[in-house]
């Protein structure tokens, strides 16, 4: 019964994320700005936000300054999107918790449980960002990610509640999974910010389209937000890989065996190391860094979905019968 309510919560959240996404899409589409306000924007880049850094204004969209006043309709749509996301997040987290209750263990035993947990962390992070730092402008891409992710989870990845296979009985496994889910959430938000950065910087180059894009913070701020998430995720991912290696040492007697999963994790790690490195030292800020971040995210997803489903290895614990 608990398992049934868990699934119900997950499916409900997937549907609600879709509705929230539609709201945010309508919000984006409803923005119209006049010619004058557009030119004003381009003359006054949001330097205040850039320099003020960690203060609230850094994270917030720059519309309080130069962008045109919000229309009522747009604001209502955005608020509704956020409100629906809150409800969806509630049923989503409930789904994860009940899944754990139904299984009588932490709900990280297979791919379905892992995706839903990681996405729950992502949505909670987003809600904190939206509430504390006024980052509701992440709404459309985040709800898009959540809709796709939860949608895939409840349709493709779903497996019934079952006990863990013996190889997964390990504290290191638990540590490994928590770290992976958390860094996965941060990689995803950082990657979304990188995509928004590319769109926004292109928009700025063209002199501002005046649409919803002008509601976003300046490209520079988005770039830095992306960096912060990835810089948070990277050490955690390193730890994830290390904890996985320790677990492998316990389970299989070797900490590294070039298993497809291990290899792709290393490749992902290397891409993000390249990202941080290039940024920190070679000065590849902006466009090129954003592209590397997006490649890193693609590699993360491929490692997760592609390797689990396409290539067989010791990590074939998706529990999905092929």
């Amino acid at each position, binding site marked *: 019964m608990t398992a049934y309510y868990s699934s119900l919560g997950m499916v409900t959240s997937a549907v609600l994320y879709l509705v929230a996404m539609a709201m945010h899409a309508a919000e984006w589409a409803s923005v119209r700005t006049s010619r004058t306000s557009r030119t004003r924007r381009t003359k006054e880049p949001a330097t205040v936000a850039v320099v003020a850094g960690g203060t609230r204004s850094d994270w917030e969209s720059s519309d309080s300054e130069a962008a045109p006043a919000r229309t009522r309709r747009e604001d209502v749509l955005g608020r509704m999107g956020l409100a629906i996301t809150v409800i969806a997040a509630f049923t989503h987290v409930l789904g994860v918790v009940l899944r754990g209750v139904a299984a009588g263990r932490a709900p990280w035993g297979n791919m379905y449980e892992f995706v839903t947990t990681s996405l729950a962390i992502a949505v909670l992070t987003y809600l904190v960002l939206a509430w504390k730092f006024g980052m509701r402008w992440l709404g459309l891409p985040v709800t898009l990610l959540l809709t796709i992710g939860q949608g895939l989870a409840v349709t493709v990845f779903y497996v019934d509640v079952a006990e863990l296979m013996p190889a997964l009985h390990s504290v290191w496994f638990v540590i490994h999974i928590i770290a992976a889910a958390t860094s996965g959430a941060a990689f995803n938000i950082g990657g979304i910010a990188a995509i928004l950065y590319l769109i926004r910087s292109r928009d700025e180059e063209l002199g501002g389209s005046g649409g919803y894009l002008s509601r976003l913070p300046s490209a520079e701020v988005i770039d*830095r937000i992306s960096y912060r998430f990835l810089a948070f995720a990277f050490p955690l991912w390193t730890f994830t890989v290390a904890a996985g290696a320790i677990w492998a040492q316990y389970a299989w007697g070797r900490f590294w065996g070039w298993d497809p999963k291990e290899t792709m994790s290393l490749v992902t790690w290397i891409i993000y190391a390249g990202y941080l490195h290039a940024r*920190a030292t070679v000065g590849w800020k902006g466009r090129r860094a954003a592209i590397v971040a997006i490649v890193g995210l693609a590699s993360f997803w491929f490692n997760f979905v592609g390797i689990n489903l396409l290539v067989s290895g010791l990590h074939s614990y998706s529990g999905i019968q092929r």
Partner: protein
Amino acid sequence: MSVARELVSWLRFAWATLSSMRTALILLLVLGIAAIPGSLLPQRPTNPIGVSDYLAANPVWAPWLDRLGFFDVFGSVWFAAIYLLLFISLIGCILPRTATYLKALRDLPSAPPGSLDRLPGHTAGTAVGTPAAVLDAAEAHLRARRYRVRREADSVSAERGYLRETGNLVFHICLVLTLIGLAWGSLFSFKGTAIIVEGQAFSNTLTQYDEFGAGAAFAPSQLSPFTLKLDDFEVKFETGPVQQGAARDFTAHVTVTDADGATTRQVLEVNGPLSVGSNNVHLLGHGYAPVVTVRDGSGQVAFSGPVVFLPQDANFRSEGVIKAPDARPERLAFEGIFLPTASSSGSGGMVSVFPDALNPQLLVNVWAGPPKAETGAPENVYALDKTGLTQLTKGGGDPLRAGLEVGTTYQLPDGRGSLSFDGWKRWTKLQISTSPGGWLVLVSVMLAVLGMAVSLTIRPRRLFVRVHPETTTTRLSVAGLDRVEGRGGLTDEVAALVAACGLEATLAATDDEEEQ
């Protein structure tokens, strides 16, 4: 000689190029790209069957991939070349950076640049008090905020965040140590597997291994003596409707006798390896060994005991060969299939429907032939060499097939003897290995994570104050500089410093506040 000089200058150029950050970065990305085929193509060391399947399926280009080492990427020369170059490059960049860092640790922060008004957050104003008093106040404020301060006659410069570089160097050095640990491990370690039936024992000598592999620097004489007896092996499978038959629990009870002769009873589980001296013992797999007795035509017992059968599917349909070379007048052999939970399939054959032994059955074909001269050549225990043997057939010429349940005996036709299926035992496949250097890898990876976390969270900042005496007040100029991006709050911190200096009036606030 000019040749020698040219060589030196060439070497110097090569070293400078190799140890540059850009080269390291490129090598790193190349390493990442090179690892991808290793995760997508089947690899010989982990999946030899996959490789031969792949070769058969792609006869045109797979042999080329094979020649280029794509089926053993991580053992290939080019992969080794990339990581060796990266390793050298890494050392090449760490050494000079460490030297610079040690020097910077002893030095005071650098003096302020000529003019502060181009720096971020620049603020100018006037303050009450003498220049010395203003600088004292600034210095006290900065020291309280744990800046390292350099005081000059007309200026104060301060710096914070030295730990960033510390963390960064720790990270890079630990990366090198990790690689050293890995290399050490692969040179001096060994790994082998052995199959042990319940009630039997394994002793740690080369001949007892089924598979054995060791690093280049490992000698078999280094195997430490111990014996391990498998007393009992328990398994549990999922009986519920979800994932029915999936493995749930494996526990092996073993008795270990170490090099000193001390005997202990221990428990070995999938995630609970044993350590015996420097050896790790892991539980890798399990299966069934039917216990049989073969009697020959003269009524003598020609073979008796458990025979290891290898599992073929998830429900442990297992195959094996029972050999009785000493049977007389004819030697006998049986090709067998063991079904732990036998059930007839729709098409008339027999299958196993559950991995646990709920309804065990043994199906055999029978082979017989004249006795063979003992050659001493090693024989594969899992395959039957059929030279000199003929298969017994039923009347119609079909191969003779017998199905036995536990406790039954099958009489071979024409008084050739009999086969009794006395019972079954479980066997476990154990892996015995050492991982020298493992602790080094572990410690350095953990330190690397720590160092990286430090270097990513600490963002060094410099602040400058310069004063110009005026008649009753002091004119001051304050600015800051962040050495890395991603840190906010510079203007706030400059403002706090300005306030601490006793600012009376702001002069011209700059509008040029872009980050550098």
